């Protein structure tokens, strides 16, 4: 298999899925269903800038997760050579889709069924077996915004920071005819148009941020105490410098004739409008994050909205890619250079709440991203030096997922273990993973 074909296959396999339920790189959160645990201090500011001003709860910890999943990967690395008999495209795609940080206790094997193609003069049917599950039942959309580690300097409530930002989104759909043929195994039929549409976009920028977070209202010596209350707000303005941009509006289509296997070939029509820019094409951008946290009688409520009206200007190269109808070869033709465009970074809204009921911490959140909303619920209770945790949520594949775990504290040090189900695999089936972490209690 040629490298180009390998890339195409991996892209086709991975792109439609998107992160179903982001892997949690924190064993405590993972055990609590992946819920946002606001806490306080700079570490909590990613999803809600107001958390920067919220005092960390007593007994809070700095946590370090252990990459257990790397152990089996390093012991038995996958083959990257398509000519190797051990090469497995699905394992690689699953690896990209579900980075091997946590240890996968129940992982689904790559489909190993035969694929059957039936050909007659007027009939073509493809039975992909389990592999058909790779194709979504409806359109597949995925998106993500990743903020890299920030270098931050702060004084009182004000701060400046710098961090990288990466955003991507993808919207893939098959027309009804192609979806039925590939996913449902229905025969291809004469005089029918088959098409796949894909809109993909990715952009990277460096962000310089200026902000302030502080208490608007504070009553009581300890805002987290049962009689305390405080309202914290934060704002973070962003000045962005574009580094790389690319988008593609792809259509792959073909139409069958009166006879499926007639003597005249049917052309696969690929057309894409591509726009790309490197650092030289990057211009300035701007954006805003706002957050609010309310502590009230031991309960905590937060709402953070990131990337409000975040835009980046670019000068892009615009080109048309297509298959030549005569030769069938792939061709890319530059249409214009230096075309001014303004890209958008979609807003992310995080709403979270935490309340202590008796000795149990109950935390919940809902995160609305570019396309979908995920929700989580987590519980934690300490019995002496041992913490018992449980949680669950609805992931981006609209599946319910569950988790549980233990934490053990010895003085300032602690160990956390978590088990969680997920559907981060090509066939969206339920898997089970183990996460572990070390905690340094303050």
């Amino acid at each position, binding site marked *: 298999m040629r490298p180009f*074909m390998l890339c195409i296959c991996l892209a086709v396999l991975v792109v439609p899925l998107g992160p179903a339920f982001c892997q949690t790189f924190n064993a405590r959160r993972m055990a609590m269903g992946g819920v946002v645990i606001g806490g306080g201090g700079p570490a909590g500011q990613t999803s809600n800038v107001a958390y920067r001003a919220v005092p960390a709860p007593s007994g809070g910890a700095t946590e370090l997760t252990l990459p257990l999943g790397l152990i089996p990967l390093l012991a038995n690395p996958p083959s990257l050579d398509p*000519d190797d008999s051990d090469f497995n495209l*699905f394992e690689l795609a699953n690896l990209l889709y579900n980075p091997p940080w946590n240890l996968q206790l129940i992982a689904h094997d790559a489909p190993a*069924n*035969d694929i059957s193609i039936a050909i007659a003069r007027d009939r073509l049917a493809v039975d992909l077996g389990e592999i058909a599950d790779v194709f979504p039942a409806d359109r597949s959309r995925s998106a993500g915004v990743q903020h890299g580690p920030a270098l931050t300097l702060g004084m009182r409530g004000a701060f400046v920071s710098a961090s990288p930002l990466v955003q991507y989104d993808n919207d893939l759909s098959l027309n009804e005819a192609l979806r039925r043929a590939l996913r449902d195994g229905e025969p291809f039929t004469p005089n029918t148009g088959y098409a796949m549409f894909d809109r993909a976009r990715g952009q990277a920028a460096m962000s310089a941020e200026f902000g302030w977070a502080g208490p608007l209202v504070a009553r009581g010596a300890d805002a987290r105490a049962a009689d305390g209350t405080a309202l914290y707000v934060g704002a973070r303005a962003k000045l962005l410098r574009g580094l790389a941009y690319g988008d593609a509006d792809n259509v792959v289509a073909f139409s069958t004739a009166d006879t499926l296997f007639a003597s005249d070939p049917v052309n696969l029509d690929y057309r894409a409008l591509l726009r790309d820019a490197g650092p030289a094409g990057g211009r300035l951008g701007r954006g805003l994050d706002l957050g609010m946290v309310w502590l009230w009688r031991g309960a905590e409520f937060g709402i953070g909205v990131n990337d409000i009206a975040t835009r980046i200007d670019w000068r892009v190269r615009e080109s048309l890619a297509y298959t030549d109808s005569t030769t069938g070869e792939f061709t890319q033709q530059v249409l214009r250079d230096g075309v001014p465009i303004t890209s958008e970074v979609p807003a992310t809204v995080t709403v979270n709440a935490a309340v202590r009921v008796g000795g149990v911490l109950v935390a919940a959140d809902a995160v609305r991203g570019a396309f979908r909303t995920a929700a989580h619920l987590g519980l934690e209770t300490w019995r002496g030096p041992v913490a018992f945790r449980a949680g669950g949520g609805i992931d981006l594949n609209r599946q319910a997922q569950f988790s549980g775990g233990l934490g053990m504290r010895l003085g300032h040090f602690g160990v956390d273990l978590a088990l969680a189900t997920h559907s981060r695999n090509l066939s969206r089936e339920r898997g089970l993973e183990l996460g572990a972490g070390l905690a340094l209690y303050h």
Partner: protein
Amino acid sequence: MRGVRWISVAALAAAAGCGAGNLVLHVDVLSFLDPAATQASVGPLVAVPGGLYTGEQPMVDDKSISLLEGLSGAAEVRSVSIRVSTIAADSTGSGSDTLRLYLSDADTPPRSTPPVLTQAIDLRPGVTDTLELEFGAEPRVAALFTQRRMRMALTNSLRGPASGPDLNCTVRLRALDAVVIAGRKLP
């Protein structure tokens, strides 16, 4: 059919990418033929000592068959089995017939290659026989099914009765299928 080529390549990549999975290609060869060309009505062949021999007569002289593109570069054929079913209906007289199936690549006249199948049929007065034959194809033939096009020819050769009534019969091809099992091509 380039659109179909991508389907086949994607299907093969999926199958081969999984390691154990095979690509199983079912080809209904008969469907590519004109129904009129799949049967021959013969007769009357008069009885002569030793029987009158028609020689090899084409039922399908040279037919091009479009298959999937892209398989030959990615797939290694592990096996091909071909199933042939014929119905021989003899109304009068006795004799024999020999069906020969030829398959070749797009650049080679099919009848310049050895027959893939040679099937002898006994013709008995008033008897209708259905003959089924399934066999594994040699590597040359197996490779043809991964090509975008192949060519085929079908002939029959009748020998009439040595004595008795004239031979009148119909020979009809009822099924001609190929099942190709292919896996990922490794160097």
